[in-house]
């Protein structure tokens, strides 16, 4: 009988209990710390009320935490075995959303399952990493470094990315592309191919510009010159910078952010939560968030390096990259370094879907670590 929570390593079986104590508690602690900071900031965002955001966020984090632990304790070979299946199911859901969206009204990103909604594009970030990891796990270096060998994984990424762009959700789609790029880089695709693709991308940019929605064009233009429309599209960036800058080194104090509490700062509980945090807790608060995230990334990469199976390494790198992209895009966007693309700050921004998908990612990364000694063949 197959037991998903027991693995045999060098004829030694890890029991569920042993696995549990193999979880990296430091890693989990960083995650908890970030989540708590998020709940505290949401409390402030609601002007000192637990509802509506902090309570919900706490519940979602709890659910996510359970999900993380469950996934951490799984046998890593299950992820490998079902990687393609999960990928195809997710792709199917994406197509459903796309078709449904065209039949229904406007942009549609959700599948309503009654109890909760699934956002297939969010799930695809995990599914694609697993599928690519499985693909490259089985590939030889020779095949990886040939053009033929990477056509299938390119398609595996471009098809969902294309579907997501049409939703339209440029941010998520770009994240998929970047994550795929990181995996390609990790597995050893030659640097010149990246240069070539990069140059190609630059040359088609004017054409791509044509296909962008007006609001996306506006975001880019506003990023390039926020003063262009200080009361319209540029308003968010300007107000965000004012909030951040006025926070100074030590911040205005908990619940004392003027920009956020007087509603000058838009979306303070979702995309711009990092701004609110930095207004109230200053540069110190912002640095704490960045450092915790750096630690999470360093740990994730050390798990990848220490894993003895190629699939696990790639999964950890892929999911860590995906997490990094969230953090970097969100903070860079609210700091006015890149255009506003609507990416939340994971663990801190209010929102259920990202919380669950990120906690699932952490679970899988922990699983890679727990199963670091498992050897997986190329079957």
């Amino acid at each position, binding site marked *: 009988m197959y037991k998903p929570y027991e693995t045999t390593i060098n004829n030694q079986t890890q029991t569920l209990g042993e696995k549990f104590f193999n979880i990296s508690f430091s890693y989990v602690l960083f995650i908890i710390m970030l989540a708590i900071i998020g709940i505290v900031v949401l409390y402030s965002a609601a002007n000192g009320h637990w509802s509506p955001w902090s309570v919900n966020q706490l519940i979602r984090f709890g659910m996510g935490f359970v999900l993380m632990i469950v996934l951490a304790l799984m046998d890593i070979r299950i992820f490998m075995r079902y990687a393609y299946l999960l990928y195809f199911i997710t792709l199917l859901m994406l197509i459903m959303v796309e078709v449904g969206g065209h039949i229904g009204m406007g942009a549609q990103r959700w599948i309503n399952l009654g109890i909760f909604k699934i956002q297939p594009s969010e799930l695809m970030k995990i599914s694609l990493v697993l599928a690519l990891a499985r693909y490259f796990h089985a590939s*030889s*270096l*020779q095949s*990886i470094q040939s053009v033929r060998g990477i056509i299938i994984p390119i398609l595996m990424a471009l098809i969902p990315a294309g579907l997501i762009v049409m939703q339209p959700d440029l941010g998520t789609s770009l994240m998929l592309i970047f994550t795929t790029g*990181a995996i390609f*880089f*990790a*597995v*050893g695709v030659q640097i010149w191919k990246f240069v070539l693709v990069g140059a190609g991308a630059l040359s088609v940019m004017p054409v791509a510009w044509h296909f962008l929605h007006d609001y996306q064009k506006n975001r880019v233009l506003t990023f390039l010159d926020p003063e262009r429309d200080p009361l319209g599209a540029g308003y968010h960036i300007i*107000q965000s*910078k*004012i*909030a*951040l*800058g*006025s*926070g*100074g*080194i030590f911040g205005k104090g908990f619940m004392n952010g*003027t*920009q956020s*509490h*007087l*509603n*000058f700062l838009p979306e303070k509980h979702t995309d711009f939560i990092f701004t609110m945090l*930095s207004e109230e807790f*200053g*540069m110190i608060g*912002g*640095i704490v968030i*960045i450092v915790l*995230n*750096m630690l999470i*990334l*360093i740990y994730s*990469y050390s798990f*990848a*390096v220490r894993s003895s199976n*190629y699939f696990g*390494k*790639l999964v950890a*790198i892929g999911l860590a*990259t995906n997490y*990094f992209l969230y*953090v*970097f895009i969100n*903070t*860079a966007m609210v*700091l006015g*370094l890149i255009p506003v693309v609507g990416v939340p700050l994971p663990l801190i921004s209010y929102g259920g879907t990202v919380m669950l998908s990120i906690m699932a990612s952490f679970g899988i990364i922990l699983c890679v670590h727990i199963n670091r000694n498992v050897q997986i063949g190329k079957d």
Partner: protein
Amino acid sequence: MNRDNDKGKILINRSYTMIITKLVLLLIIVLRLYYLQVYQADKYKMMADENRISTRLLIPPRGVIYDRNGVMVASNRQNFQAMIVAEQTPDIQATLDEFKKIMPLSKEEEEKIKKDIKRNRSFVPIKIRDNLSWEEVSKIQLKAPDLQGIYIDEGLSRDYPFGESMAHILGYVSSVNEAEAKADEDSLLKLPEFKIGKAGIEKLFEKELRGKGGSLKLEVNAYGRVMKEIEKIDGIPGKSLSLTIDSRLQQKAYELFGEQSGAAVVLDVHTGEILAFVSAPSYDPNAMSKGLSSKEWKELVNNERKPLSNKAISGQYSPGSTFKTVVALAALESGIVRPETKFSCSGQMFLGNHAFHCWRRTGHGSLNVVEALMHSCDIYFYETAQRIGIERIANMARRFGLGKKLNIGLENEKAGLIPDKVWKKKHFRESWQQGETVIAGIGQGYVLTTPLQLATMVARIANGGFAVTPTFTRVTDKSHIKKINISSDYLDTVKQGMYDVVNVPGGTAYRSHFNINGMEMAGKTGSTQVRRITMKERQTRILRQDELPWKYRDHALFIAFAPYDNPKYGIAVLVEHGGGGSSVAAPIASAILQEAINLNILK
């Protein structure tokens, strides 16, 4: 297996590259935080404050204006306003309907309120009605449960307790217009509810009365809602003013005009302080400050008695026989005519083949200067003027304040006109005619004066020849008042003539004489034609004044001072188209002077 090892090694190497890249990118975030939160912190702190702090100007209370006895003649009254806050009202229409049961609202008013509500954010109070009475306020408060979102706000509005009687002195305040806003830097003028002096003392002393605006710093949110008060800086209230006017005398003088149109000015003959200053009819400055409807405005503008015109300083009238006082002085000073010099009046006089008539067709016989003044004989002054010439007359008139502005500071003050040869040459490119001197001798023709100038003239005669100038501000130092270069003997002769006008039977104003504890008035009547009497009319019968339409009747004038023995009050009264100076103007002047004496204004 070898290739697999390579594949693993590449992965490890590239992992290091990747993690380092990621950490570097996150370091850039930290640097950016440093740049914004440390390097540029001050700039953004300022911008955050600009966002959240809204500074409101506070209108300082306008200076109160008092009369000479400390009676308020312009004050600030609490103005109760009914306001509505849209977000506190469950159903705006229903609430307004309920309000209309207490006080009717016109369709336009209701539309305007609804428009204002739509245009503003829901927490902004919108004015429904202002200047509510106590009764209306209590009605609204009683009905409060049905009027959710409506509350009573208190503001200050200007109040003129004496209304019309002082409108031409005080003027009024009203909303700032574009030109005024351009000319004045004070940011108070940018407030829509701020009112500025538009006329009279309110305009003349605008800067002093206004004070300095205070400010209120408020914390507001992104939608402009006030969260809390940060700081309040009190402004400086406007300075209060004390005028020379005696409100009792002013009120009485205004009432004496009744339906008549005209002006009256009462001066302290020794200082020039203006005790009363009437222009009738007048307008309601309280209504003016609230704003008139276009219909009310049209009525004021089209009224043939010109309530908006300040006749005391803007009305230029022929002085008529009141001018004979000046002509007499010029004659006496010239030496050509001596007090005992007599001329004979037969009712008419010929110059070339042109006949000049005396007002009395049968003539006055032979009379000297005192008698000529008493009877206001025209022939005597034709003869006199003809002998002394226009230059001497003009010169004397100017010494007594005629022919140029007295600059009391109110708008539209006119200079009047004292003609002479140079003036005629300049204006008509013609030389002066003898007949014009003759006409000027009885204060007709080109000669024009304002009632204020006539009051000044009589004050200068009464006080023994001191060049007082009329003023609304109290005079504490009289040392700057210069003596006019004229012999007091001549002045006494003229005063004697003026005394006889009032107090000797047969004098033109004898009917208006009074004697209060030995205090008597001296004066001079004047009636000036506003139409030409035709030859035909002279041959048949000259129409009586009451037979003529109002606008063709003579202007009635009277100048006077009192008490005769110890002059204190000087007065000039003009009644437009009033008929005769003796029948219409003199009684008014007499009543005003009696009132002044009874009130004992100048002790």
